[in-house]
């Protein structure tokens, strides 16, 4: 009897001490970690838009986040809610039916810092809605303007990878041509599937128009050596390729399918399908959203 009390006591002490240390470390590090994550996300978006180290983003570059919510009423009928920044100040929530008809526009009073974090954003949206409606966060998309001109779109997407999900971001120009992709989170095998993060794979998507993208496939063929050099900017620089030559080679391969990574066909396919899927859904949604905004003359910021 005495023994068992001692054992219980000893194990409890170990657990409590471990919990205290973890709690203290978590309290100290959590907000810095979140800040870092946001910073990395912001940098990824800017990088996809063509800015980054060596090319600072100009001051008139504005990135507007649009958050998509799925709103369910009491009977469980879904409709969509888009949380968008307004022209002057504040935000609005546009309720759009699945058929594409705009239902209502609800002004939302909140500042950007409150909306950037998911938990507080969810509560803001739900408190703005009537009581019988419930909104569930679906996805964000980012609209970038340079001054008054549309620079492009950045859309996050998720796809099923070899073992678990691959999170990616696709950037489109105003004509909806893919300008680049970024892998934000993946757990593919190092050395095989993880090569999807290499520029010689990612850059193959740049320049694919809607037309090409629709029938884009993955082919199990070796990457042509001239194309390989062009896809990897440092390599192109080492080979002393002039900008004209680079453009010429890119032009030649612009309609090529995606060349699969050696030993990682599944991961290559996963990313390709993910990009296709993400873009297809985005184009469809953008059309509906654009129509609704134009028809009802909503004063949005972008």
């Amino acid at each position, binding site marked *: 009897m005495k023994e068992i009390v001692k054992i219980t006591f000893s194990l409890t002490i*170990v657990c409590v001490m471990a919990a205290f240390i973890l709690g203290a*470390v978590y309290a100290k590090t959590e907000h810095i970690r979140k800040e870092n994550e946001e910073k990395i996300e912001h940098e990824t978006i800017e990088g996809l838009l063509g800015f980054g180290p060596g090319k600072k983003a100009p001051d008139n570059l504005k990135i507007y986040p649009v958050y998509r919510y799925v709103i369910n009423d009491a009977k469980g009928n879904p409709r969509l809610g888009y949380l968008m920044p307004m022209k002057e100040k504040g935000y609005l929530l546009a309720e759009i039916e699945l058929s594409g008809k705009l239902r209502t526009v609800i002004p939302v009073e909140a500042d950007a810092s409150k909306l950037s974090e998911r938990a507080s954003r969810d509560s803001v949206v739900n408190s703005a809605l009537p009581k019988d409606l419930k909104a569930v966060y679906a996805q964000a998309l980012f609209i970038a303007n340079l001054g008054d001109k549309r620079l492009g779109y950045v859309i996050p997407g998720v796809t099923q990878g070899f073992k678990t999900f691959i999170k990616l971001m696709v950037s489109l120009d105003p004509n909806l041509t893919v300008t680049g992709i970024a892998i934000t989170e993946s757990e593919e095998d190092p*050395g095989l599937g993880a090569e999807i993060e290499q520029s010689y794979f990612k850059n193959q998507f740049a320049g694919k128009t809607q037309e090409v993208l629709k029938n884009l496939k993955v082919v199990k063929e070796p990457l042509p050596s001239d194309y390989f050099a062009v896809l990897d900017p440092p390599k192109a620089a080492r080979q002393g390729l002039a900008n004209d030559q680079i453009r010429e080679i890119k032009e030649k391969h612009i309609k090529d399918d995606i060349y699969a990574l050696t030993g990682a066909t599944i991961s290559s396919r996963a990313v390709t399908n993910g990009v296709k899927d993400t873009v297809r859904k985005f184009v469809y949604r953008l059309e509906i959203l654009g129509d609704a905004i134009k028809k009802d003359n909503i004063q949005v910021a972008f």
Partner: protein
Amino acid sequence: MNRNLTLVWNGLIPENPIFRLALSLCPAVAVTTSIKNGLLLGLAVVFVQVFSSCTVAIFKSFIHPRIRIPAYVIIIALWVTVIDMILPVISPEVYKQVALFVKLIVVFAIIISRLELFASKEPLTPSFFDGLGMGLGFTFGLCLTGAIREFFGAGQLFGHDVLGFKPLLIMILPAGGFFVIGFIMAMFNWLEYKITGKIPKSGGVH
């Protein structure tokens, strides 16, 4: 030679966790497709091993012998989680690379075996050096395996193109990991036989 130095040396070569003790072979095969992967995982293991060994060496009188294994697991999990929380704050770039590996360390056989065999019996200083030696030995093993596999499998070293072609793709696939580790193990045994003149016992000295 000083005992502490002997302990570090022991972990590095004569009792190398991968090639002599044959512990933690799963991660060793899984991540050693390149030197960089091996090095990053190795460094993470050094930290967890040293911190866990020291913690156990300090608090061993409080840990009831009959529940020592769960207590060790909690201690290892504690340090792994602490590193998992602190690293993204100190260096988000490095964390992005090692995040996958760090969480695996909780279940590494090498760490719990060192706590059971060494840190629970010895005072703080030797435990520290034993942990350091074992961690460095593990890192050395991962880097050596990673270097051979990366060179023959991808024609690269440290991510830089060396050969310009891929001589043996199988080396980078899981099967190649078994081959490379098996051959290095054989080489270690052969060297021991040459030096001491005795046929080595399997699975190290324990």
